[in-house]
Protein backbone atom coordinates (compact mmCIF):
# COMPACT_ATOMS: atom_id res chain seq x y z
CA UNK A 1 0.00 0.00 0.00
CA UNK A 2 2.73 2.41 0.95
CA UNK A 3 4.45 1.80 -2.38
CA UNK A 4 1.32 2.95 -4.19
CA UNK A 5 1.22 6.03 -2.02
CA UNK A 6 4.83 6.84 -2.63
CA UNK A 7 4.33 6.52 -6.37
CA UNK A 8 1.27 8.75 -6.14
CA UNK A 9 3.17 11.32 -4.13
CA UNK A 10 6.07 11.22 -6.57
CA UNK A 11 3.79 11.64 -9.54
CA UNK A 12 2.38 14.72 -7.85
CA UNK A 13 5.83 16.11 -7.26
CA UNK A 14 6.86 15.55 -10.87
CA UNK A 15 3.76 17.20 -12.16
CA UNK A 16 4.20 20.10 -9.80
CA UNK A 17 7.83 20.47 -10.60
CA UNK A 18 7.10 23.55 -12.68
CA UNK A 19 4.82 25.14 -10.09
CA UNK A 20 5.64 26.31 -6.58
CA UNK A 21 4.66 23.97 -3.80
CA UNK A 22 2.24 25.65 -1.44
CA UNK A 23 1.56 22.93 1.08
CA UNK A 24 3.45 19.75 1.83
CA UNK A 25 2.67 17.11 4.42
CA UNK A 26 5.32 14.69 5.53
CA UNK A 27 4.46 11.33 7.09
CA UNK A 28 1.37 12.72 8.76
CA UNK A 29 -0.04 10.27 11.28
CA UNK A 30 -2.78 10.96 13.79
CA UNK A 31 -3.74 8.80 16.74
CA UNK A 32 -6.54 9.88 19.07
CA UNK A 33 -6.15 8.61 22.60
CA UNK A 34 -9.49 7.11 23.55
CA UNK A 35 -10.69 5.32 26.67
CA UNK A 36 -8.61 2.15 26.54
CA UNK A 37 -8.10 1.81 22.80
CA UNK A 38 -6.23 4.34 20.71
CA UNK A 39 -7.88 5.29 17.45
CA UNK A 40 -5.61 5.55 14.42
CA UNK A 41 -7.17 8.14 12.17
CA UNK A 42 -4.48 9.07 9.68
CA UNK A 43 -1.65 6.85 8.47
CA UNK A 44 1.49 8.28 6.94
CA UNK A 45 0.04 10.94 4.65
CA UNK A 46 2.39 12.45 2.08
CA UNK A 47 0.69 15.12 0.04
CA UNK A 48 1.72 18.15 -1.94
CA UNK A 49 -0.48 20.99 -3.09
CA UNK A 50 0.76 23.59 -5.58
CA UNK A 51 0.24 27.31 -5.47
CA UNK A 52 -3.19 28.20 -6.88
CA UNK A 53 -4.28 24.58 -7.10
CA UNK A 54 -7.75 23.30 -6.24
CA UNK A 55 -7.42 19.96 -4.46
CA UNK A 56 -10.33 17.87 -3.24
CA UNK A 57 -9.79 15.34 -0.48
CA UNK A 58 -12.38 12.63 -1.00
CA UNK A 59 -13.24 9.81 1.34
CA UNK A 60 -16.02 8.02 3.18
CA UNK A 61 -17.62 9.73 6.18
CA UNK A 62 -15.55 9.50 9.33
CA UNK A 63 -12.39 8.42 7.52
CA UNK A 64 -10.29 11.22 8.95
CA UNK A 65 -10.23 13.64 6.03
CA UNK A 66 -11.52 16.44 8.26
CA UNK A 67 -8.76 15.63 10.72
CA UNK A 68 -6.26 15.99 7.89
CA UNK A 69 -7.71 19.42 7.07
CA UNK A 70 -7.66 20.50 10.72
CA UNK A 71 -4.02 19.48 11.03
CA UNK A 72 -3.12 21.31 7.80
CA UNK A 73 -4.85 24.45 9.10
CA UNK A 74 -2.93 24.25 12.36
CA UNK A 75 -5.87 23.52 14.68
CA UNK A 76 -4.59 20.06 15.64
CA UNK A 77 -1.01 18.98 16.19
CA UNK A 78 -0.32 15.66 14.41
CA UNK A 79 0.95 12.67 16.39
CA UNK A 80 3.77 12.18 13.87
CA UNK A 81 4.88 14.10 10.83
CA UNK A 82 4.83 17.73 9.86
CA UNK A 83 2.93 20.15 7.64
CA UNK A 84 4.86 22.75 5.69
CA UNK A 85 3.27 25.77 4.06
CA UNK A 86 5.47 28.06 1.95
CA UNK A 87 8.42 26.20 3.42
CA UNK A 88 7.46 27.07 7.00
CA UNK A 89 6.42 24.44 9.54
CA UNK A 90 2.79 24.92 10.62
CA UNK A 91 2.35 25.31 14.37
CA UNK A 92 -1.04 26.99 14.63
CA UNK A 93 -3.80 28.76 12.73
CA UNK A 94 -2.84 31.81 10.72
CA UNK A 95 -4.91 34.55 9.03
CA UNK A 96 -3.00 33.87 5.79
CA UNK A 97 -4.99 30.64 5.46
CA UNK A 98 -8.60 30.56 6.51
CA UNK A 99 -10.69 27.56 7.44
CA UNK A 100 -14.30 27.59 6.22
CA UNK A 101 -16.64 25.46 8.28
CA UNK A 102 -20.13 24.54 7.24
CA UNK A 103 -22.34 27.61 7.44
CA UNK A 104 -22.43 27.21 11.24
CA UNK A 105 -19.16 29.08 11.43
CA UNK A 106 -20.58 32.58 10.89
CA UNK A 107 -20.93 34.65 14.06
CA UNK A 108 -24.65 34.92 14.87
CA UNK A 109 -24.17 38.08 16.95
CA UNK A 110 -22.77 40.06 14.01
CA UNK A 111 -24.52 41.39 10.93
CA UNK A 112 -23.43 40.41 7.43
CA UNK A 113 -21.16 43.47 7.41
CA UNK A 114 -19.86 42.70 10.87
CA UNK A 115 -19.03 39.14 9.88
CA UNK A 116 -17.19 40.09 6.70
CA UNK A 117 -15.30 42.81 8.55
CA UNK A 118 -14.44 40.52 11.47
CA UNK A 119 -10.86 39.80 10.42
CA UNK A 120 -10.19 43.33 9.15
CA UNK A 121 -9.53 44.94 12.53
CA UNK A 122 -6.05 46.07 11.48
CA UNK A 123 -7.35 48.15 8.56
CA UNK A 124 -8.51 51.78 8.67
CA UNK A 125 -12.23 52.39 8.75
CA UNK A 126 -12.40 53.47 5.12
CA UNK A 127 -10.34 50.51 3.87
CA UNK A 128 -12.48 48.17 5.88
CA UNK A 129 -15.72 49.58 4.48
CA UNK A 130 -14.33 49.26 0.93
CA UNK A 131 -13.27 45.66 1.46
CA UNK A 132 -16.64 44.76 3.01
CA UNK A 133 -18.57 46.32 0.13
CA UNK A 134 -16.39 44.51 -2.43
CA UNK A 135 -16.96 41.08 -0.92
CA UNK A 136 -20.64 41.61 -0.28
CA UNK A 137 -20.92 42.23 -4.01
CA UNK A 138 -18.69 39.31 -4.92
CA UNK A 139 -20.90 36.83 -3.09
CA UNK A 140 -24.15 38.60 -4.02
CA UNK A 141 -25.37 39.64 -0.59
CA UNK A 142 -26.23 43.23 -1.54
CA UNK A 143 -29.25 44.44 0.39
CA UNK A 144 -28.49 42.18 3.35
CA UNK A 145 -25.63 44.23 4.84
CA UNK A 146 -27.50 44.83 8.09
CA UNK A 147 -29.11 41.39 8.33
CA UNK A 148 -28.18 38.88 11.00
CA UNK A 149 -27.28 35.31 10.02
CA UNK A 150 -30.48 33.89 11.47
CA UNK A 151 -32.38 35.94 8.91
CA UNK A 152 -30.42 34.35 6.02
CA UNK A 153 -30.90 31.06 4.19
CA UNK A 154 -28.32 28.27 4.44
CA UNK A 155 -26.80 29.13 1.08
CA UNK A 156 -26.51 32.80 1.99
CA UNK A 157 -24.83 31.95 5.29
CA UNK A 158 -22.35 29.78 3.42
CA UNK A 159 -21.60 32.58 0.95
CA UNK A 160 -21.20 34.93 3.92
CA UNK A 161 -18.64 32.63 5.47
CA UNK A 162 -16.71 32.39 2.22
CA UNK A 163 -16.80 36.20 1.94
CA UNK A 164 -15.54 36.56 5.52
CA UNK A 165 -12.67 34.24 4.68
CA UNK A 166 -11.78 35.98 1.39
CA UNK A 167 -11.97 39.47 2.91
CA UNK A 168 -8.72 39.02 4.85
CA UNK A 169 -7.07 38.14 1.53
CA UNK A 170 -5.64 34.77 2.56
CA UNK A 171 -3.51 32.87 0.09
CA UNK A 172 -5.07 29.56 1.02
CA UNK A 173 -8.53 28.30 1.92
CA UNK A 174 -9.45 25.12 3.75
CA UNK A 175 -13.05 24.09 3.14
CA UNK A 176 -14.53 21.31 5.27
CA UNK A 177 -17.57 19.87 3.47
CA UNK A 178 -18.76 23.44 3.07
CA UNK A 179 -21.87 22.61 1.08
CA UNK A 180 -22.81 19.45 2.96
CA UNK A 181 -25.79 20.97 4.74
CA UNK A 182 -27.29 22.63 1.67
CA UNK A 183 -30.05 21.29 -0.55
CA UNK A 184 -28.89 19.84 -3.85
CA UNK A 185 -29.91 22.80 -6.03
CA UNK A 186 -28.22 25.34 -3.77
CA UNK A 187 -25.18 23.07 -3.64
CA UNK A 188 -24.86 23.15 -7.45
CA UNK A 189 -25.14 26.93 -7.48
CA UNK A 190 -22.57 27.24 -4.70
CA UNK A 191 -20.09 25.06 -6.60
CA UNK A 192 -20.37 27.33 -9.62
CA UNK A 193 -19.96 30.38 -7.38
CA UNK A 194 -16.89 28.93 -5.71
CA UNK A 195 -15.29 28.17 -9.06
CA UNK A 196 -16.05 31.69 -10.28
CA UNK A 197 -14.45 33.17 -7.16
CA UNK A 198 -11.50 30.81 -7.38
CA UNK A 199 -10.90 31.77 -10.99
CA UNK A 200 -11.05 35.45 -10.05
CA UNK A 201 -8.82 35.25 -6.96
CA UNK A 202 -6.68 32.14 -7.58
CA UNK A 203 -6.33 31.05 -3.99
CA UNK A 204 -4.92 27.64 -3.21
CA UNK A 205 -7.88 25.55 -2.09
CA UNK A 206 -8.02 22.33 -0.12
CA UNK A 207 -11.58 21.09 -0.15
CA UNK A 208 -12.82 18.11 1.85
CA UNK A 209 -15.89 16.26 0.62
CA UNK A 210 -17.47 12.82 0.56
CA UNK A 211 -19.29 13.62 -2.66
CA UNK A 212 -17.56 12.10 -5.71
CA UNK A 213 -19.45 14.24 -8.24
CA UNK A 214 -18.56 17.36 -6.29
CA UNK A 215 -14.87 16.45 -6.24
CA UNK A 216 -14.73 15.71 -9.97
CA UNK A 217 -16.64 18.88 -10.86
CA UNK A 218 -14.41 21.18 -8.83
CA UNK A 219 -10.89 19.90 -8.42
CA UNK A 220 -7.65 19.97 -10.37
CA UNK A 221 -6.72 16.84 -8.48
CA UNK A 222 -8.80 14.49 -6.33
CA UNK A 223 -7.04 12.79 -3.43
CA UNK A 224 -8.93 9.57 -2.76
CA UNK A 225 -8.67 8.41 0.85
CA UNK A 226 -9.29 4.93 2.22
CA UNK A 227 -11.46 4.12 5.23
CA UNK A 228 -9.96 4.58 8.70
CA UNK A 229 -7.09 4.74 9.33
CA UNK A 230 -7.07 6.96 6.25
CA UNK A 231 -4.30 6.53 3.73
CA UNK A 232 -4.04 8.09 0.31
CA UNK A 233 -5.40 5.44 -2.06
CA UNK A 234 -4.87 7.30 -5.26
CA UNK A 235 -4.55 10.80 -6.63
CA UNK A 236 -6.65 11.43 -9.72
CA UNK A 237 -5.88 14.33 -11.99
CA UNK A 238 -8.99 15.92 -13.48
CA UNK A 239 -7.71 17.21 -16.80
CA UNK A 240 -10.94 18.79 -18.02
CA UNK A 241 -10.98 22.56 -18.46
CA UNK A 242 -13.65 24.65 -16.72
CA UNK A 243 -16.56 25.02 -17.29
CA UNK A 244 -16.82 21.23 -17.24
CA UNK A 245 -19.32 19.34 -19.29
CA UNK A 246 -20.59 16.80 -16.80
CA UNK A 247 -22.00 14.56 -19.49
CA UNK A 248 -18.73 14.35 -21.46
CA UNK A 249 -17.05 10.96 -21.74
CA UNK A 250 -13.89 12.13 -20.00
CA UNK A 251 -15.88 13.37 -16.99
CA UNK A 252 -17.81 10.12 -16.76
CA UNK A 253 -14.63 8.04 -17.12
CA UNK A 254 -12.89 9.89 -14.33
CA UNK A 255 -15.93 9.80 -12.11
CA UNK A 256 -16.56 6.10 -12.62
CA UNK A 257 -12.88 5.39 -12.08
CA UNK A 258 -13.14 6.92 -8.64
CA UNK A 259 -16.37 5.07 -7.91
CA UNK A 260 -14.55 1.85 -8.72
CA UNK A 261 -11.54 2.85 -6.66
CA UNK A 262 -13.79 3.31 -3.64
CA UNK A 263 -15.40 -0.05 -4.37
CA UNK A 264 -18.77 1.10 -5.59
CA UNK A 265 -20.36 0.13 -8.86
CA UNK A 266 -22.02 3.23 -10.20
CA UNK A 267 -25.48 1.70 -10.27
CA UNK A 268 -28.32 2.36 -7.89
Amino acid at each position, binding site marked *: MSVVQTIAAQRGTERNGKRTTKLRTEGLTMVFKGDGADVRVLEDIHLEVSEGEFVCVLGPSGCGKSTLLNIA*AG*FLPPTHGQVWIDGEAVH*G*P*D*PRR*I*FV*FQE*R*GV*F*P*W*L*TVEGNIG*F*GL*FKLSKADRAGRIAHYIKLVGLQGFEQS*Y*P*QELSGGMKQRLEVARALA*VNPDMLFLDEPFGALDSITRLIMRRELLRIWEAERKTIMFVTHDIEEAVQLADRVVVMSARPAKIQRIVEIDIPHPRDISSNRYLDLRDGIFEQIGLAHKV
Partner: protein
Amino acid sequence: MNFPIRLRPVFFVVVLLALWDVAARRQSSHILPGPLAVLAGIAELAQRGLLLKYIVASLFRVTWGFAMATVLAIPTGLALGSHRRVEMALNPMIQIFRPISPLAWIPISILWFGVGDLAAIFLIFLASFLPLTVTAINAVKSIEQIYLRAGRNFGLDQVQLLYRVLYPAVAPQLIIGLRITLGIAWLVVVAAEMIAVNSGLGFLIVDARNAGNRYDLVVAGMVMIGVIGLLLDIGMRSLERIRSMRWGYSED
Protein backbone atom coordinates in the same frame (compact mmCIF):
# COMPACT_ATOMS: atom_id res chain seq x y z
CA MET B 1 -67.77 36.73 24.08
CA ASN B 2 -65.14 37.54 21.50
CA PHE B 3 -62.55 39.56 23.37
CA PRO B 4 -59.47 40.95 21.62
CA ILE B 5 -56.55 38.79 22.77
CA ARG B 6 -54.68 41.66 24.39
CA LEU B 7 -57.64 42.50 26.62
CA ARG B 8 -58.04 38.98 27.93
CA PRO B 9 -55.55 39.28 30.82
CA VAL B 10 -57.19 42.58 31.82
CA PHE B 11 -60.60 40.95 31.74
CA PHE B 12 -59.33 38.07 33.86
CA VAL B 13 -57.84 40.43 36.47
CA VAL B 14 -61.12 42.36 36.70
CA VAL B 15 -63.06 39.13 37.26
CA LEU B 16 -60.59 38.04 39.93
CA LEU B 17 -60.80 41.42 41.71
CA ALA B 18 -64.58 41.22 41.69
CA LEU B 19 -64.52 37.71 43.20
CA TRP B 20 -62.05 38.89 45.84
CA ASP B 21 -64.31 41.81 46.68
CA VAL B 22 -67.36 39.57 47.06
CA ALA B 23 -65.45 37.06 49.17
CA ALA B 24 -64.03 39.78 51.44
CA ARG B 25 -67.50 41.20 52.05
CA ARG B 26 -69.01 37.81 52.88
CA GLN B 27 -66.45 36.79 55.52
CA SER B 28 -67.57 37.15 59.13
CA SER B 29 -64.33 38.29 60.78
CA HIS B 30 -63.52 41.20 58.42
CA ILE B 31 -59.80 40.66 59.10
CA LEU B 32 -58.84 40.15 55.45
CA PRO B 33 -59.21 43.33 53.35
CA GLY B 34 -61.00 43.62 50.02
CA PRO B 35 -59.40 45.22 46.97
CA LEU B 36 -60.76 48.67 47.77
CA ALA B 37 -59.34 48.59 51.29
CA VAL B 38 -55.96 47.58 49.87
CA LEU B 39 -56.11 50.44 47.40
CA ALA B 40 -56.91 52.80 50.28
CA GLY B 41 -53.94 51.28 52.16
CA ILE B 42 -51.60 51.99 49.28
CA ALA B 43 -52.93 55.56 49.13
CA GLU B 44 -52.38 55.96 52.86
CA LEU B 45 -48.80 54.71 52.60
CA ALA B 46 -48.15 57.09 49.73
CA GLN B 47 -49.59 59.96 51.69
CA ARG B 48 -47.39 59.25 54.72
CA GLY B 49 -44.38 59.16 52.38
CA LEU B 50 -43.65 55.58 53.36
CA LEU B 51 -44.47 53.92 50.04
CA LEU B 52 -41.74 55.59 48.01
CA LYS B 53 -39.29 55.40 50.90
CA TYR B 54 -39.75 51.67 51.35
CA ILE B 55 -39.67 50.92 47.64
CA VAL B 56 -36.45 52.89 47.26
CA ALA B 57 -34.97 51.12 50.32
CA SER B 58 -35.75 47.67 48.89
CA LEU B 59 -34.52 48.53 45.39
CA PHE B 60 -31.37 50.09 46.83
CA ARG B 61 -30.45 46.81 48.57
CA VAL B 62 -31.27 44.65 45.59
CA THR B 63 -29.33 46.89 43.24
CA TRP B 64 -26.16 46.84 45.35
CA GLY B 65 -26.24 43.15 46.22
CA PHE B 66 -27.14 42.09 42.69
CA ALA B 67 -24.65 44.44 41.04
CA MET B 68 -21.77 43.28 43.21
CA ALA B 69 -22.67 39.65 42.61
CA THR B 70 -22.83 40.27 38.84
CA VAL B 71 -19.47 42.04 38.73
CA LEU B 72 -17.77 39.24 40.67
CA ALA B 73 -19.69 36.15 39.55
CA ILE B 74 -19.57 36.58 35.77
CA PRO B 75 -15.79 36.91 35.41
CA THR B 76 -15.38 34.12 37.98
CA GLY B 77 -17.79 31.86 36.12
CA LEU B 78 -16.25 32.63 32.72
CA ALA B 79 -12.80 31.86 34.07
CA LEU B 80 -13.92 28.65 35.77
CA GLY B 81 -15.81 27.53 32.68
CA SER B 82 -12.74 27.84 30.51
CA HIS B 83 -10.38 26.08 32.94
CA ARG B 84 -11.72 22.60 33.47
CA ARG B 85 -9.30 21.60 36.21
CA VAL B 86 -10.03 24.59 38.42
CA GLU B 87 -13.72 24.06 37.88
CA MET B 88 -13.44 20.40 38.85
CA ALA B 89 -11.59 21.41 42.00
CA LEU B 90 -14.12 24.03 43.05
CA ASN B 91 -17.31 22.38 41.85
CA PRO B 92 -17.99 20.25 44.97
CA MET B 93 -17.82 23.34 47.15
CA ILE B 94 -20.19 25.22 44.86
CA GLN B 95 -22.61 22.31 44.96
CA ILE B 96 -22.55 22.22 48.79
CA PHE B 97 -23.15 25.94 49.15
CA ARG B 98 -25.84 26.09 46.49
CA PRO B 99 -28.64 24.26 48.34
CA ILE B 100 -28.17 26.44 51.46
CA SER B 101 -31.00 28.94 51.28
CA PRO B 102 -29.74 32.52 51.47
CA LEU B 103 -32.18 32.94 54.36
CA ALA B 104 -30.16 30.48 56.42
CA TRP B 105 -27.41 33.08 56.36
CA ILE B 106 -29.57 35.70 58.12
CA PRO B 107 -28.19 35.06 61.65
CA ILE B 108 -24.60 35.11 60.44
CA SER B 109 -25.07 38.19 58.30
CA ILE B 110 -26.59 40.05 61.29
CA LEU B 111 -23.68 38.85 63.42
CA TRP B 112 -21.19 40.21 60.89
CA PHE B 113 -22.92 43.36 59.69
CA GLY B 114 -25.47 44.20 62.39
CA VAL B 115 -29.09 45.08 61.71
CA GLY B 116 -29.06 47.34 58.67
CA ASP B 117 -28.52 47.73 54.95
CA LEU B 118 -25.21 45.90 54.86
CA ALA B 119 -26.69 42.69 56.24
CA ALA B 120 -29.48 42.77 53.66
CA ILE B 121 -27.12 43.60 50.81
CA PHE B 122 -24.87 40.73 51.88
CA LEU B 123 -27.82 38.34 51.74
CA ILE B 124 -28.80 39.50 48.24
CA PHE B 125 -25.20 39.09 47.20
CA LEU B 126 -25.17 35.52 48.52
CA ALA B 127 -28.46 34.73 46.84
CA SER B 128 -27.20 35.99 43.47
CA PHE B 129 -23.55 35.00 43.42
CA LEU B 130 -23.72 31.24 43.01
CA PRO B 131 -26.59 31.09 40.49
CA LEU B 132 -24.78 33.65 38.34
CA THR B 133 -21.46 31.82 38.64
CA VAL B 134 -23.07 28.54 37.62
CA THR B 135 -24.82 30.25 34.69
CA ALA B 136 -21.54 31.70 33.46
CA ILE B 137 -19.73 28.36 33.84
CA ASN B 138 -22.38 26.55 31.82
CA ALA B 139 -22.50 29.31 29.22
CA VAL B 140 -18.78 29.01 28.55
CA LYS B 141 -18.91 25.24 28.46
CA SER B 142 -21.70 25.20 25.89
CA ILE B 143 -20.05 27.72 23.57
CA GLU B 144 -19.59 26.43 20.01
CA GLN B 145 -15.89 25.58 19.63
CA ILE B 146 -16.21 26.60 16.00
CA TYR B 147 -16.50 30.28 17.02
CA LEU B 148 -13.31 30.17 19.07
CA ARG B 149 -11.48 28.42 16.24
CA ALA B 150 -12.66 30.97 13.72
CA GLY B 151 -11.58 33.76 16.07
CA ARG B 152 -8.11 32.29 16.43
CA ASN B 153 -7.92 31.69 12.69
CA PHE B 154 -8.40 35.40 12.04
CA GLY B 155 -5.41 36.15 14.25
CA LEU B 156 -7.11 37.33 17.45
CA ASP B 157 -4.99 37.33 20.60
CA GLN B 158 -6.34 36.06 23.93
CA VAL B 159 -7.79 39.42 25.00
CA GLN B 160 -9.49 40.04 21.65
CA LEU B 161 -10.80 36.49 21.68
CA LEU B 162 -12.35 37.18 25.09
CA TYR B 163 -14.30 40.28 24.16
CA ARG B 164 -14.90 39.68 20.45
CA VAL B 165 -15.89 36.00 20.56
CA LEU B 166 -16.30 34.54 24.04
CA TYR B 167 -18.29 37.38 25.53
CA PRO B 168 -20.79 37.87 22.67
CA ALA B 169 -21.20 34.09 22.38
CA VAL B 170 -22.25 33.70 26.01
CA ALA B 171 -24.19 36.98 26.36
CA PRO B 172 -27.66 35.57 25.56
CA GLN B 173 -27.33 32.85 28.19
CA LEU B 174 -25.94 35.32 30.72
CA ILE B 175 -28.98 37.53 30.22
CA ILE B 176 -31.32 34.64 30.97
CA GLY B 177 -29.28 33.90 34.09
CA LEU B 178 -29.38 37.55 35.16
CA ARG B 179 -33.12 37.66 34.70
CA ILE B 180 -33.78 34.56 36.79
CA THR B 181 -31.30 35.65 39.45
CA LEU B 182 -32.81 39.11 39.75
CA GLY B 183 -36.11 37.36 40.45
CA ILE B 184 -34.46 35.37 43.23
CA ALA B 185 -32.81 38.50 44.62
CA TRP B 186 -36.17 40.23 44.76
CA LEU B 187 -37.66 37.27 46.66
CA VAL B 188 -34.79 37.30 49.11
CA VAL B 189 -34.81 41.04 49.82
CA VAL B 190 -38.36 40.84 51.12
CA ALA B 191 -37.49 37.97 53.46
CA ALA B 192 -34.29 39.66 54.60
CA GLU B 193 -36.11 42.86 55.38
CA MET B 194 -38.53 41.03 57.62
CA ILE B 195 -35.68 40.23 59.99
CA ALA B 196 -32.51 42.13 59.34
CA VAL B 197 -33.63 45.76 58.84
CA ASN B 198 -36.40 48.19 59.71
CA SER B 199 -37.36 49.66 56.39
CA GLY B 200 -38.36 48.34 53.00
CA LEU B 201 -41.34 46.41 51.67
CA GLY B 202 -40.56 43.27 53.67
CA PHE B 203 -40.37 45.29 56.86
CA LEU B 204 -43.66 47.00 55.92
CA ILE B 205 -45.46 43.65 55.86
CA VAL B 206 -44.15 42.45 59.21
CA ASP B 207 -44.57 45.88 60.79
CA ALA B 208 -48.17 46.28 59.60
CA ARG B 209 -49.14 42.98 61.14
CA ASN B 210 -47.32 43.59 64.43
CA ALA B 211 -48.65 47.13 64.79
CA GLY B 212 -52.32 46.31 65.07
CA ASN B 213 -53.12 43.66 62.48
CA ARG B 214 -53.30 46.15 59.58
CA TYR B 215 -53.91 43.47 56.97
CA ASP B 216 -54.87 46.09 54.41
CA LEU B 217 -51.27 47.35 54.58
CA VAL B 218 -49.91 43.77 54.55
CA VAL B 219 -51.70 43.06 51.28
CA ALA B 220 -50.78 46.52 49.97
CA GLY B 221 -47.12 45.58 50.53
CA MET B 222 -47.63 42.27 48.77
CA VAL B 223 -49.22 43.97 45.79
CA MET B 224 -46.33 46.42 45.50
CA ILE B 225 -43.79 43.58 45.69
CA GLY B 226 -45.60 41.78 42.89
CA VAL B 227 -45.86 44.85 40.66
CA ILE B 228 -42.21 45.83 41.11
CA GLY B 229 -41.07 42.24 40.54
CA LEU B 230 -43.02 42.22 37.30
CA LEU B 231 -41.47 45.52 36.19
CA LEU B 232 -37.96 44.25 36.95
CA ASP B 233 -38.62 41.16 34.87
CA ILE B 234 -40.00 43.19 31.98
CA GLY B 235 -36.89 45.37 32.15
CA MET B 236 -34.55 42.37 31.97
CA ARG B 237 -36.65 40.74 29.28
CA SER B 238 -36.27 43.78 27.05
CA LEU B 239 -32.54 42.95 26.87
CA GLU B 240 -33.47 39.72 25.10
CA ARG B 241 -34.88 41.75 22.24
CA ILE B 242 -31.54 43.35 21.35
CA ARG B 243 -30.96 42.29 17.75
CA SER B 244 -27.46 40.93 18.21
CA MET B 245 -28.70 38.70 21.05
CA ARG B 246 -31.80 37.28 19.46
CA TRP B 247 -29.99 34.31 17.93
CA GLY B 248 -29.53 32.89 21.42
CA TYR B 249 -33.23 32.50 22.10
CA SER B 250 -35.13 29.76 20.36
CA GLU B 251 -37.80 31.84 18.69
CA ASP B 252 -37.35 30.27 15.29
